[in-house]
């Protein structure tokens, strides 16, 4: 990108404070002791709207006018009809109003503004375009993408479920699903909905993030972040490595949430009703392969028990997740070593009937083992609490840690071989426990890939990919949900974020901020539903405030709190705290209805005021950032709105939303931008340069930059040009002055002024003069280069296939030479080489541009002595073979003194390999002349004819300018 033409603070400079904040070693910063008293963590107050002299003023306006009055400012006048309908229509639907809608609204508005606005708002809220616009706002927060990001080649990189999630969001908003329910389904839909409910698609919110090549800690981190910032504007992610520096979020709280997601597994569920046999076949193949690989792995885990136990004494040798090794079946699997570590940590105590001896002996250093083992074991053996097989195995004290491990191995192997032996039951139960260390977790490959050798992982991902690809092919609705694991585990803190530094165990429970008093561990499963309930609760101090602030931001250009996804201690105060609280309470009271919130905001006089302040000077001094809303903000449309508006005004918009998503750069894609294919790994340059929300991160506020790439997209890209052509075509039947008026109304919902009409006509006159003066495109070259065969029976050219690749100096079959099906075939300005067989003779073809009498001259040279030389022919389409020669290691003149041709006749100069392919290069550059012109194969040699440019005609040029103007891209 070039340097953007906006300014950012290049850096936050000379801030010793900032430096200190970033360097925990130097200065410890921690939240103030009263951090829990921060306004955003308190329940919203129940403020009464300030009194107003005008009793018709809504509560919202009363709050805002009170603060304006305090600052000595007055509200702006009401906006004019056209500005207002543009503003409301773009805000609610991301599309412009039609000229007819604008006229109708203006009339209704003149009669009764409140009624007109209410009717307009209702109509727009009822349109599907509403969900498409507001759905995209939510998708920004949900870091929506159709792909997983970078994955290894074995894995399908597209999500099978993403488009279904996107459609669910759009439809939920169109149905005005209560916001609390909207959140509950996205976080814990699996526990609230019947199996295969279409609403399970909601869980794509959690599962649609980047896959981080499968590293669990990072996937969970992404999920914690997307939930906590989207719903409550809490930057909990900051506490992954250390306690949050500003907010009362200890690291333990981060890991409490980590445990919730760690105790959930991903599951891909097809939601379609019609059965697909092929899909079933692939699902079965996956399931049976998974079962068999899990069984093999369990076999290895049992037979290698001694090694896995010995590995517990040298855990440092087994790298953490993220350090990937190629593993063969004979290797110890690091993830299984860690699973043993964690299982022993959780389950084994010295009193454990089976692993009591292990734990007791594990602490004895190897060199003191023979001396200390017997005395350490004695109390356990005396207690009679040991499993009989274990007690028997340890009757004599082992002399080394390795001996301990091999005794355990013998005990378990004996139980596996003799399942009916007395005492085997308890051992078998452990061997077969799906949550135990002898089994690979019973999940999809997405959650258990670490427990298999590398080749197995590849095989299983391929089978999973077959299922994914079938779902994608079918464009079948699918959900990627989370479900709770049968045994939820408490997480351990990773000290400084490193899974290699395991800290204390913490319960799964709510963060301190949400439960400052009497916090209890979650009771049910992973606790995800309890977390969801706490988020979607009317008692939650943040959820409603955060959401109404986001809605405010989309209508007024900025939130009442200007950091919409950070309501922590550094967020700053709301510009209107009482209003924020009033809105939050009103929102909950309304049944968490987004549509009724929007109705209220749009009905306010503040929303409906003009962008011109009542007193511009005072406004710019006292309200420079418009925090007091002394005027309506002038806003630039985002990329989606500009693109969709161009499609809408040109009549090209395709309202389809079903069907597989299309690339945004596909010229055939005339659907609304929200439905486009978003690949987080390959975000098109166009989207990036227009500040499209980065699909890797939760985006609460889009950047707004102005860079020349945006202008290049509109000027030179095919998109705006196609819209301009459509506009020109639609209006083609109108007389010029009416055509100008039509375009202005269509794009700007207003007539063109006399000055605008005049400058349009001047522009068009000049453009038409230019177009008339355009020189006609040069005639096509009479020469072409191809391959074909000489037909012996007819003595003519049997076929002609153009040589497809031009290198700048030669035509050939492929970019590399020799290459492609024609092999050595090549033609240059002066000669060439026939293709590999007689079927691939090279043919230089001349097509007569006009009827004439011509003569042909030229000399054919075949230099090499090797091989048997070549055959050459001159063949007329009208007269057949004119000349034929076998040429080997000599020069031969190839001349035809006189020949009549008609326009379109061809003369072929054909060379093949004769009998064998050996040293067949030749020089032959025929010339053809008539009385006043000469065409030479060398003189005229050039690249393939380029089609004449498809220039915009003058009206399309004009329409393009109108599309590019600021008036189109900004709303008042």
């Amino acid at each position: 990108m070039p340097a953007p033409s906006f300014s950012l603070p290049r850096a936050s400079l000379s801030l010793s404070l900032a430096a200190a904040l970033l360097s925990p070693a130097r200065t410890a910063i921690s939240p103030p002791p009263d951090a829990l008293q921060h306004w955003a963590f308190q329940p919203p107050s129940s403020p009464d709207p300030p009194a107003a002299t005008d009793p018709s003023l809504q509560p919202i306006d009363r709050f805002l006018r009170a603060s304006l009055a305090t600052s000595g400012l007055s509200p702006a006048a009401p906006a004019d009809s056209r500005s207002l309908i543009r503003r409301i229509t773009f805000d609610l639907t991301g599309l412009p109003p039609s000229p007819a809608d604008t006229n109708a609204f203006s009339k209704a508005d003149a009669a009764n503004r409140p009624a007109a606005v209410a009717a307009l708002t209702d109509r727009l809220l009822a349109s599907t375009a509403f969900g498409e616009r507001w759905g995209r706002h939510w998708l920004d927060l949900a870091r929506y993408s159709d792909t997983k990001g970078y994955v290894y080649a074995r894995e399908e990189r597209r999500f099978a479920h993403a488009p279904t999630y996107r459609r669910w969001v759009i439809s939920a908003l169109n149905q005005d699903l209560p916001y609390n329910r909207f959140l509950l389904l996205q976080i814990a839909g699996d526990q609230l909905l019947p199996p295969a409910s279409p609403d399970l698609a909601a869980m794509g919110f959690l599962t649609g993030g980047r896959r981080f090549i499968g590293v669990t800690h990072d996937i969970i981190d992404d999920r914690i972040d997307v939930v906590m910032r989207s719903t409550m504007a809490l930057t909990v992610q900051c506490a992954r490595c250390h306690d949050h520096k500003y907010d009362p979020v200890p690291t333990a709280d981060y890991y409490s949430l980590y445990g919730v997601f760690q105790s959930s597994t991903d599951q891909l569920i097809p939601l379609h009703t019609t059965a697909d046999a092929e899909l079933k076949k692939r699902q079965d193949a996956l399931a049976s392969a998974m079962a068999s690989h899990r069984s093999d792995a369990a076999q290895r885990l049992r037979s290698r028990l001694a090694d896995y136990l010995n590995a517990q004494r040298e855990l440092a040798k087994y790298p953490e997740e993220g350090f990937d090794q190629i593993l063969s079946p004979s290797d110890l699997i690091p993830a299984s070593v860690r699973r043993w570590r964690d299982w022993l940590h959780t389950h084994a105590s010295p009193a454990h009937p089976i692993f009591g001896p292990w734990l007791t002996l594990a602490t004895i250093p190897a060199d003191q083992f023979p001396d200390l083992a017997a005395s350490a074991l004695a109390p356990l053996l005396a207690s009679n609490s040991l499993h009989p097989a274990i007690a028997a195995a340890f009757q004599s004290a082992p002399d080394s840690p390795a001996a301990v491990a091999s005794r355990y191995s013998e005990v378990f192997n004996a139980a596996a071989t003799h399942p009916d032996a007395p005492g085997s039951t308890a051992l078998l139960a452990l061997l077969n426990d799906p949550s135990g260390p002898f089994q690979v977790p019973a999940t999809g490959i997405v959650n258990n890939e670490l427990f298999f050798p590398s080749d197995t992982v590849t095989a299983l991902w391929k089978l999973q990919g077959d299922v994914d690809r079938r779902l994608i092919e079918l464009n079948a609705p699918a959900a990627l949900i989370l479900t709770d694991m049968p045994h939820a585990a408490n997480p351990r803190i990773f000290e400084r974020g490193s899974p290699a530094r395991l800290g204390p165990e913490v319960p799964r429970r709510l963060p301190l901020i949400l439960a400052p008093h009497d916090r209890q561990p979650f009771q049910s499963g992973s606790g995800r539903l309890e977390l969801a309930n706490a988020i979607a609760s009317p008692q939650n101090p943040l959820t409603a405030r955060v959401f109404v602030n986001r809605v405010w931001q989309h209508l007024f250009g900025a939130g009442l709190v200007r950091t919409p996804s950070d309501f922590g201690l550094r967020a700053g105060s709301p510009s209107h705290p009482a209003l924020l609280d009033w809105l939050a309470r009103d929102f909950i009271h309304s049944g968490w209805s987004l549509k009724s919130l929007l109705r209220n905001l749009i009905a306010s006089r503040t929303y409906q005021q003009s962008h011109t302040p009542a007193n511009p000077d005072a406004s710019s001094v006292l309200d420079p950032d418009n925090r007091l809303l002394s005027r309506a903000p002038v806003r630039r449309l985002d990329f989606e709105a500009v693109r969709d508006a161009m499609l809408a005004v040109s009549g090209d918009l395709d309202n389809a939303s079903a069907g597989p998503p299309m690339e945004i750069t596909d010229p055939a894609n005339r659907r609304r931008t929200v439905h486009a294919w978003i690949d987080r790994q390959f975000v098109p340059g166009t989207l990036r340069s227009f500040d499209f929300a980065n699909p890797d991160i939760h985006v609460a506020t889009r950047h707004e930059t102005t860079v020349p790439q945006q202008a290049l997209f509109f000027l030179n890209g095919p998109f705006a040009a196609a819209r301009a052509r459509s506009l020109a075509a639609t209006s083609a039947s109108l007389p010029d002055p009416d055509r100008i008026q039509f375009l202005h109304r269509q794009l700007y919902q207003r007539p063109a002024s006399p000055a605008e009409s005049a400058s349009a006509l001047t522009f068009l006159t000049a453009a038409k003069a230019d177009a008339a003066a355009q020189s006609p495109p040069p005639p096509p070259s009479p020469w072409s280069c191809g391959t074909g065969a000489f037909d012996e029976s007819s003595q003519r050219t049997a076929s002609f296939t153009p040589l497809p690749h031009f290198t700048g100096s030669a035509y050939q079959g492929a970019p590399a030479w020799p290459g492609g099906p024609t092999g050595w075939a090549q033609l240059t300005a002066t000669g060439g080489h026939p293709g590999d067989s007689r079927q691939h003779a090279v043919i230089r073809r001349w097509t007569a541009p006009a009827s004439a009498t011509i003569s042909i001259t030229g000399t054919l040279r075949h230099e090499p002595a090797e091989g048997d030389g070549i055959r050459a022919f001159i063949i007329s389409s009208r007269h057949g073979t004119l000349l034929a020669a076998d040429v080997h290691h000599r020069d031969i003149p190839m001349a035809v003194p006189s020949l009549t041709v008609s326009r379109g006749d061809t003369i072929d100069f054909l060379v093949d390999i004769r009998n064998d392919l050996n040293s067949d290069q030749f020089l032959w550059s025929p010339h053809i002349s008539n009385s006043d012109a000469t065409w030479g194969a060398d003189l005229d040699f050039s690249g393939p004819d380029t089609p004449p440019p498809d220039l915009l005609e003058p009206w399309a040029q004009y329409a393009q300018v109108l599309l590019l103007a600021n008036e189109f891209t900004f709303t008042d």
Partner: protein
Amino acid sequence: MPPPDPSLLNRRSFLARAGMGMGALSLAPLVAADSPRPHFAPRVKRVIHFFLNGGPSHVDTFDPKPLLSKFAGQPLPDSLRTERKTGTAFPSPFKFQRYGQSGLEISELFAKTAAHADDIAVIRSMHALVPNHEPSLMLMNCGDSVQARPSVGSWVLYGLGSENQNLPGFIAMCPGGMPIKDSENWQAGFLPGAFQGTFIDPQHRELDKLIEHIRSPHASQATQRRQIDLLAALNAAHRDSHPAIPALDARLNSFELAFRMQSEATDAFDISREPESVRAAYGDHVHGRQTLMARRLLERGVRFIQLWHGAGQPWDTHDNIAGNLPKLAADIDGPIAALISDLKQRGLFDDTLIIWGGEFGRTPTVELNESGQSKLGRDHNHYGFSVWLAGGGIRGGTIHGATDDFGFRATKDSTSVHDLHATILHLLGFNHEQLTYRHAGRDFRLTDVSGDVIHPILI
């Protein structure tokens, strides 16, 4: 230069104030931010990074280990775990020689580059975190193995801006297509998209394949000129009813800029405008061409250029290094040497930083196949590897740090990727601890929470 977009400016300065404010800081640098504002006088103005993607072997190039010959065929006393299994000590098949006044030891693979040994500072004690390409590419390019973070070039552009409005300020060239991890390597992360690297495949020769939308297929220059003039008239009338909204002017000016960019970019990428002797020095192959293109771009004010070796990971030499490394090195040895000479001749060497390296190095032990036999190649090694720097502010002919006797692990003056990044920013005039950006509740920096400038390699 168009005026700043006030909505953005206000939001940013608000954030900066709200975050660190307490009235303790001057707002001036935040508001008048159009011109570059380093923290101190920069030593270099631009950076070119030869990225040997796949992981170049240090023990075959810039870190000679004669002891490997002595132990050839024997297991090393301290063999470390890497991605795949490796076996015994594997001596380099390439000869090393001392070059220049400094006597810097460089292998025959980079004999041409070695002519500039006295300009080069080799860091022999780099280390990364894991022996896998993806996280190591992210660490080297973006300072974090996993999370979506801005790349070095994006940070530099954010800090300094570009010197040329008509060209992308941060360019990543890679012949033949994308490297592993694709555009994540030059991502802007949470910074505005404008700071992201622009990808260019130098195999293309047509400008419109190098830069998207750089030419109009449907309008002549004269037509565009007339269109932009009419656009300006329409926008002027619109502005009359919208006073004091600079975003409107910024957008208008962006069309003028785009118009100029079309001709400037044509010139910058056209190496046929170079004299024959210069083209010959760089070499008439894709690496020579991309390096020469890069010099033309640097000269025209492009701030940060990465030259990748090729699509995928060409330097990932798991087998047959005796056959593979000479070909790979020959691709870039000549162009690097030519670039250094050329920059010197043009007086650009002293304010340009040249970086050479990959995401990690290679094992001194030989890689084994599944049956335990030697593949005559080396596995990934993140425990110790080499990167070298040359150009403005660099103390040439120096060696910093060392790996162990065999080249497996950095042992002396161990240098992290954050240290390297801190040094790059330092040379560009930034204190890496203070070049920050507020995102998700925290002030992020390229070097996360550590990193020390490598002063011994600096003048």
